[in-house]
């Protein structure tokens, strides 16, 4: 396969504080300009206030590949996209791009509130690099995709934010570049529209075009992309198949605690322990039905069991264990607490214990969830480990209808009927 993007030794340096790579104000520029040249040199060398947003990054992207760019905030993903989009120059290194590249770092760039939907479609299309004739040829398609035909001649300042985003994305979705660079633009809009966008992106990649996709939405990333580049603190930390890249990222993001693929997690040395807490929580084991270790994904609605190994240093009554499920984006989804179970009784104990939590049916929708484990004694949280494990819920025929639940937050048994009115 032909290489369409080749980055070699790519680096970008910013000045800290102002986020600028330049001087801040005219006065400072004057003062500096007046100083002898030798002083200036010394200042530059001594200046510790520089920050490498990207440092010596090299990679190739082949034609038709769909590449996820993942990493924590501040890892250099956006800087990379800005360099690829030519918005900013690298400080060092080169990128060679073969083919027409369009980038989408924001939807609706150039939109103006006073202009109508129709006018903004033309303007935004031109800003994104489309010719007038191209926009005109796709205009009806764009309007149909956005589903806004009735509001075309209304100024977009009267649009709801959802309508605004739909129109903006519709324009972007009808770009036809050879290489498409997309930032986290799917985080906007409602779920139905997000799915439509993901579908459109899937379509683009099936057409053999090259896509670079930055996202924190790991299920979307795994669904759409074939390979992944993981960035950490400005460096390329991992590159490989998307599944491995996501694992690498999650492992790194969770301080090595969540060893994806293994059902046993050693909590004794967890880096994500609550600061200053004694390491009472020692071990977490995850199972699904009938005590089968949970190594891969957990089907929607399948039984879930967690066994938490812990140590009590002195005789204790009133132990309380809390498991919390969060999305990778940090949204709190579910709190399971031993105190919620009236049948849970814990007499006075000392030493090593195993607390077992059984959830007969974990009715969360497909996606990755972080599990936080906490131990409360006498109503006070004495030990806790964030991101102790990752539970990956995978699609399954929960309803027995062949229709797989994918969106929303959770699934519930439901009954439907139709009555004659």
């Amino acid at each position, binding site marked *: 396969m032909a290489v369409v993007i080749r980055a070699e030794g790519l680096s970008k340096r910013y000045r800290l504080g102002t986020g600028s790579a330049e*001087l801040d*104000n005219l006065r400072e*520029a004057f003062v500096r300009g007046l100083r002898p040249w030798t002083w200036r040199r010394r200042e530059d060398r001594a200046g510790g206030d520089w920050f490498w947003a990207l440092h010596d990054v090299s990679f190739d992207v082949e034609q038709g590949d769909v590449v996820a760019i993942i990493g924590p905030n501040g890892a250099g993903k956006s800087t990379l996209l800005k360099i690829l*989009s030519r918005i900013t120059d690298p400080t060092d290194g080169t*990128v060679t791009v073969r083919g027409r590249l369009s980038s989408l770092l924001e939807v609706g760039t150039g939109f103006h509130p006073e202009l109508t939907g129709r006018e903004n479609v033309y*303007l935004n299309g*031109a*800003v994104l690099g489309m*010719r007038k004739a191209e926009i005109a040829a796709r205009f009806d398609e764009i309007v149909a995709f956005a589903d806004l035909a009735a509001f075309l001649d209304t100024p977009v300042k009267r649009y709801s934010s959802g309508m605004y985003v739909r129109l903006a994305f519709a324009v972007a979705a009808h770009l036809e570049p050879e290489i498409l660079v997309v930032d986290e633009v799917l985080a906007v809009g409602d779920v139905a529209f997000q799915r439509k966008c993901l579908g459109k992106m899937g379509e683009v990649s099936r057409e053999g075009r090259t896509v670079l996709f930055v996202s924190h939405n790991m299920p979307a990333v795994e669904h759409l992309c074939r390979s992944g580049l993981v960035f950490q603190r400005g460096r390329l930390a991992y590159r490989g198949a998307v599944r491995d890249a996501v694992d690498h990222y999650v492992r790194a993001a969770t301080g090595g605690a969540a060893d994806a693929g293994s059902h046993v997690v050693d909590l004794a040395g967890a880096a994500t322990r609550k600061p200053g807490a004694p390491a009472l929580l020692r071990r977490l084991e995850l199972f699904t039905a009938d005590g089968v270790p949970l190594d891969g994904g957990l089907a929607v609605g399948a039984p879930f069991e967690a066994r938490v190994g812990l140590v009590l240093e002195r005789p204790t009554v009133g132990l309380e264990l809390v498991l919390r499920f969060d999305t990778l984006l940090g949204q709190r989804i579910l709190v399971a607490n031993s105190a919620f179970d009236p049948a849970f009784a814990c007499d006075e104990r000392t030493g090593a214990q195993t607390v077992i939590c059984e959830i007969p049916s974990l009715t969360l929708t497909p996606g990755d969830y972080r599990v936080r484990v906490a131990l409360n004694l006498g109503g006070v949280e004495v030990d806790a480990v964030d991101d102790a494990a990752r539970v990956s819920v995978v699609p399954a025929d929960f309803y027995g209808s062949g229709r797989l639940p994918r969106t929303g937050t959770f699934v519930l048994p439901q009954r439907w009927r139709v009555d004659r009115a």
Partner: protein
Amino acid sequence: MKGDASAGTGELVIRARRGWQPIDLAEIWRYRELLGFLAWRDVTIRYRQTVLGAVWAVAQPLTAALIFTVFFQRLGDPRGDGPPYPLFVFVGLVPWLFFANAVTAAGASMVGNPQLVSKIYFPRVFIPLSSIGALLVDLVLSLAAAAALMLVFRWPPSPAVAWLPLFLVATVLTAVGPGLILAALNVHYRDVKYAVPFLVQMGLFVTPVIYPLAGMPARLQPLAALNPMTGPVEGVRHALLGTPVRAELVATSLTVGVLLFVAGLYVFRRMERRLADVI
């Protein structure tokens, strides 16, 4: 930047650019439609939801001409055989107000459109250029008003009217140079925002707008010719009203304007690299 992706299949090498770079004309040509769109956007936005619309374009020079007529009438015509002062000052204000508004709008253009700088790439020079381009509409309207005033005062156009397009082009080029420099400077140094109105106000008095260049002391006239707007103002007035001009002074001023235009292109090109990091 070299080897730009021309037809979409070329190869583009992105690397740090250093030193002075010429303007990439091929790229500007490729994006030409966008320049039109951006200028159209600026025009549309300015007049949308205004009741009087285009009247505002003419109201500004008319009001200014009226005020200057009331206060400075005696400055206009030392010999008494020239055009009536209101006409004289209005025609002078046409190029001057275009210049003043263009420099002000261009200076604010980058800072006023941060997403266009930090979220997308196209030739950045389009942002100040389109805000100047939008003012061409005002220029045309105020020229029409000037023609109407000439009818009112029964002052026929001079035979030199064929030179008018040249002086109008010179007006625009002269505005583009400083406009580009100020646009880029404003991103780095917000001081520009405060400096521009001040400079524009001063400029009105050191440029022969409300008085003829011939009205200045003779030894100061060569100095005034170094002012790039002296040529366009004197030239437009000469072409429309037939006021006398000293060709060598006008030519000097136009040359300064062209040099400033070229300098603006280079300075902007040099500063544009860092704009997205700073804005």
